[in-house]
């Protein structure tokens, strides 16, 4: 994918992100923060590629660190969001 195509995706997604979050009630700010935080753990995808690439030790270490951190972010984020939302739902 060439640079302009990447840039196009970037711009469209920025617009979309702006449009999606409008008038969130304060009650949902925290779950939304932890949820979108978990989504930003998409770095995991890149981390997996870096860690599995079988490069130098430095690269593998960095890849390992990236996988660990991204996984914490993803698993922790989605689980805690779910926990919070489940509490709201109970009523």
């Amino acid at each position, binding site marked *: 994918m060439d*640079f302009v195509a990447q840039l196009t995706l970037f711009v469209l*997604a920025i617009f979309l992100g702006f449009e999606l979050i409008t008038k969130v009630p304060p009650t949902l*700010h925290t779950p939304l923060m932890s949820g979108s935080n978990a989504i*930003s753990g998409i770095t995991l995808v890149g981390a*997996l590629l870096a860690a599995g690439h079988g490069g130098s030790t430095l690269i593998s270490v960095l890849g*390992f660190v*990236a996988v660990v951190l991204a996984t914490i972010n993803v698993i922790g984020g989605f689980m*805690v969001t779910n926990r919070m939302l489940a509490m709201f739902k109970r009523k």
Partner: protein
Amino acid sequence: MQIAQHWIDIAYLIAAALFILGIKGLSKPKTAVRGNLLAATGMGIAAVVTLLHHDIVSYEVIIAGLIVGAVIGAILAIRVQMTSMPQLIALLNGFGGGASFALAAAEYFKGVDSTVAMAASGAAVLIGAVTLTGSFVAFAKLQELIGGQPKGFPGMKLVNLVLLVFSLGAIGYMTWTGQPNDTLFWAVVAAAALLGIMLVMPIGGADMPVVIALLNSYSGLAASAAGFVMGNSALIITGSLVGASGLILTQIMCKAMNRSLTNVLFGVMAEAGEAMDADEVYKGKIKSSSADEVAMILETAQRVVIVPGFGLAMAQAQHAVRDLADTLEARGTVVEYAIHPVAGRMPGHMNVLLAEAEVSYDKLKDMDTINPTFEQTDVAIVIGANDVTNPLAREDKSSPIYGMPILNVDKARTVVVVKRSLSPGFAGLPNPLFAKDNTLMLFGDGKQAIIDTTNALKEG
């Protein structure tokens, strides 16, 4: 097993669509749970499909990393108390930034072959490292490992500027010449890490949620930048989605706290006005009370408003408060809760806590709804709230919190304030409410004081 890039990209597209639907869902109460599950599903798809990518030749490191990360993440998520939620989010966010940073560094050392990749890896390292250290400072402030007060030194802004200009210059230089330079690279990492610390240090603890939302936006942008390095559409799209939505969320939160983003970022609040002398405000004017006395007053009250604050979270008093409310209601008293948008340490903090104690949703009144009713309220019970009830915000133009909308509890016939001492809240200011004629202080741990009052009420 390995599959064609083609199919991987289609799977990424599906994942991106699920993230979009997920974020959309998370912004409405009814669909929030489903939104979160959709997003998690998207992440699962993206991760699984990546494992089938032909670039992946060894799985040991990956599996080790996944296990370690999943265990830590799950423990954090299960163990965390609702009161510590802001810290956890700060921490997780820092990890996200750290992951982008580590990933971009790995890509850098693999060798970046194009101008775009070089510039993007620089950007990912810079933003990722700032997010990492910045989030950790936010975590430390919220966890009270370091004080919540703004910290800084004269000329700090200048130093920050120098660090930023240096980082951008170094990345620009490497991009321009097309020559990676490892020394310069690590210098950028160090500068960015320092920058993250120094940007968050001068921001007051009370503004941390805004900072976290902003750093959340950064971690998205870092992921997006990493996507440009790797030519990975999933990272680009998802990262920029989060980047943009985080920024909007930041703005929404600033609005709720009645502050501008620049004010938050440059700690302007902390600089305004003189520190007030607490002694002067309180001396000789404080009326200390007891659980029995408060119970007596409550006996005749027709309408009671409970005002929860951060202390409620600290004391884990949500269940005790609910008991008190149940007891009052059994006696025919009308009980409502006044929820300030920034009570506690994160937006919606009190909603989460009281939801945990199964307080019915329609008893939680937001600030605009409840404020006009305080004049018809017999007793306002302030439990561990402080700043959100501070009349200085309404009256004293030189006060650092001037202009923040507050709960007008002082308009109630009697105000009972439950806290352990006269020590200030997050903003570090004395609260003239405590010295008012119609205010009674009920000193003690929030939970115990409420339980005592409930018991006294039941016996009395």
